[in-house]
């Protein structure tokens, strides 16, 4: 059996932790440099604030409904996340930290699962003050689905064990909410009149493999309660490391772009060294603000092969600045620079 534990509206819950007076008010956390809404309290969701909506589009709503707005504080979120994960790791030796606010646990030999889920949830909630939902099922895909259902239930837990429980959980579950079904597959399946998880499971394995490749076939078996996706307890080597951030304001000055690129590239070099890897390829991209439809858009991109695999700051900065100079055109107002290192070798 697998459990998926997921923190509810994680960033908002972290901000509320030390400010309980906000528990009844709508709260929104914004991305870096206050670009978009990235975490919303249930009250804010009810006001119709969508995930990823740019801040300037909701400014009127914020003033009207007295919404509390926070800039993101990743130092705080990472600390609280570590505290949650360490509390969870005391429950099971098999742990996969899936993201900053989600964690899979492998469960073996536990007889009363609903009881266990309740203890797990109340311990984490008491020790960290962050509300979490717990979904338990025979496979990771079903645990993910159970977690979605747990979010809607007042107890915050959902255990799917028997054949009948699986069947009834799948019956009205929208296909787009399944783990591994993105927007493209969602559209493709809708054209075939497959709208719920139960309808997908009723197809033949060959049809599923034809439509969704081998990944989809794994998903199919997982829906039948046959585990295909194991817990990942050791991290994969990083494929690429990226730093990108928007500026506080728009700019078309080359010096300012170079300044920002230097700062981001130094940070990138630090990350590379912490990971004990060297890059063989450096990518630089300049971006204009895509929400300012009144301004001309320009998002040039360049890949720079490096002569030797490196992780030292001066050489990386030199390469990145060369890239910015090659891409730069004074006719546009830039809002963001992205620097990424790939082809990482130890």
């Amino acid at each position, binding site marked *: 059996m697998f459990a998926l534990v997921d923190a509810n509206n994680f960033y908002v819950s972290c901000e509320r932790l030390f400010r309980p*007076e906000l528990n009844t008010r709508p709260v929104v956390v914004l991305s870096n440099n206050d670009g978009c809404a990235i975490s919303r309290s249930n009250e804010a969701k009810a006001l119709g604030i969508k995930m990823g909506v740019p801040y300037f589009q909701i400014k009127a709503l914020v003033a009207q409904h007295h919404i509390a707005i926070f800039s993101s504080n990743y130092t705080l979120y*990472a600390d609280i996340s570590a505290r949650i*994960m360490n509390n969870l790791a005391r429950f099971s030796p098999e742990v996969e930290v899936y993201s900053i606010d989600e964690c899979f646990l492998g469960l073996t030999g536990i007889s009363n699962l609903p009881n266990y889920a309740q203890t797990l949830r109340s311990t984490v909630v008491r020790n960290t003050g962050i509300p979490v939902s717990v979904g338990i099922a025979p496979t990771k895909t079903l645990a993910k689905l159970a977690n979605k259902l747990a979010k809607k239930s007042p107890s915050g837990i959902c255990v799917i064990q028997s054949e009948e429980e699986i069947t009834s959980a799948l019956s009205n579950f929208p296909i787009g909410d399944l783990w591994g079904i993105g927007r493209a597959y969602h559209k493709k399946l809708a054209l075939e009149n497959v709208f719920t998880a139960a309808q997908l499971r009723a197809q033949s394995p060959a049809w599923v493999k034809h439509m969704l490749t081998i990944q989809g076939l794994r998903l199919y078996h997982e829906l039948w309660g046959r585990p295909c996706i194991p817990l990942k307890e050791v991290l994969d080597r990083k494929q690429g490391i990226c730093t990108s951030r928007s500026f506080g304001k728009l700019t078309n000055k080359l010096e300012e772009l170079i300044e920002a690129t230097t700062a981001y590239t130094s940070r990138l070099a630090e990350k590379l060294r912490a990971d004990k890897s060297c890059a063989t390829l450096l990518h630089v991209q300049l971006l204009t603000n895509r929400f300012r439809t009144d301004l001309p858009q320009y998002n040039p991109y360049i890949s720079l092969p490096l002569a030797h695999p490196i992780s030292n700051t001066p050489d990386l900065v030199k390469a990145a600045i060369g890239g910015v100079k090659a891409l730069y055109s004074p006719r546009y107002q830039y809002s963001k620079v992205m620097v990424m290192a790939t082809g990482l070798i130890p």
Partner: protein
Amino acid sequence: MLKQVHTPKDPALEPLLHPEQASGFVSPAEDYLEGRLSILERLVKDPVNTYYAEADSDELSALGICKGTLFVYDTSMKATHNALVVLWYQGEWKVRQYHVLGKHVYLGTGKENEEPELVSEELLIRGVVTWSCRPHQHKPKCYVRPR
């Protein structure tokens, strides 16, 4: 992966962390080095669930707690009768003595001439104070070797 909650070393305060680096030879005394005495190890039993707070008034002077006292509190512990707890009550973070009498809960400051207050509104308990560290100098000064 799992991240340990820890206190980092400050190289500015410990410029001689690795004295052997100057000569290139490792001192034979290194074999006998033990971990340094750490106040954290003594005060913090469970780093994952330990938090800190600072007193900003002399309200709890009867308990020997003055302004600037540092509280070490554990969120995994259950508040029991007479424990010192960190709580959110009437729109404020407070540290109070927690008294349970039958079905009623009272919050006290330890003052002899003051009756503990009966809890009538929603009370949020954040943790139990395990240690408090009281300052005895108002401006602590610390010598840092100039570099």
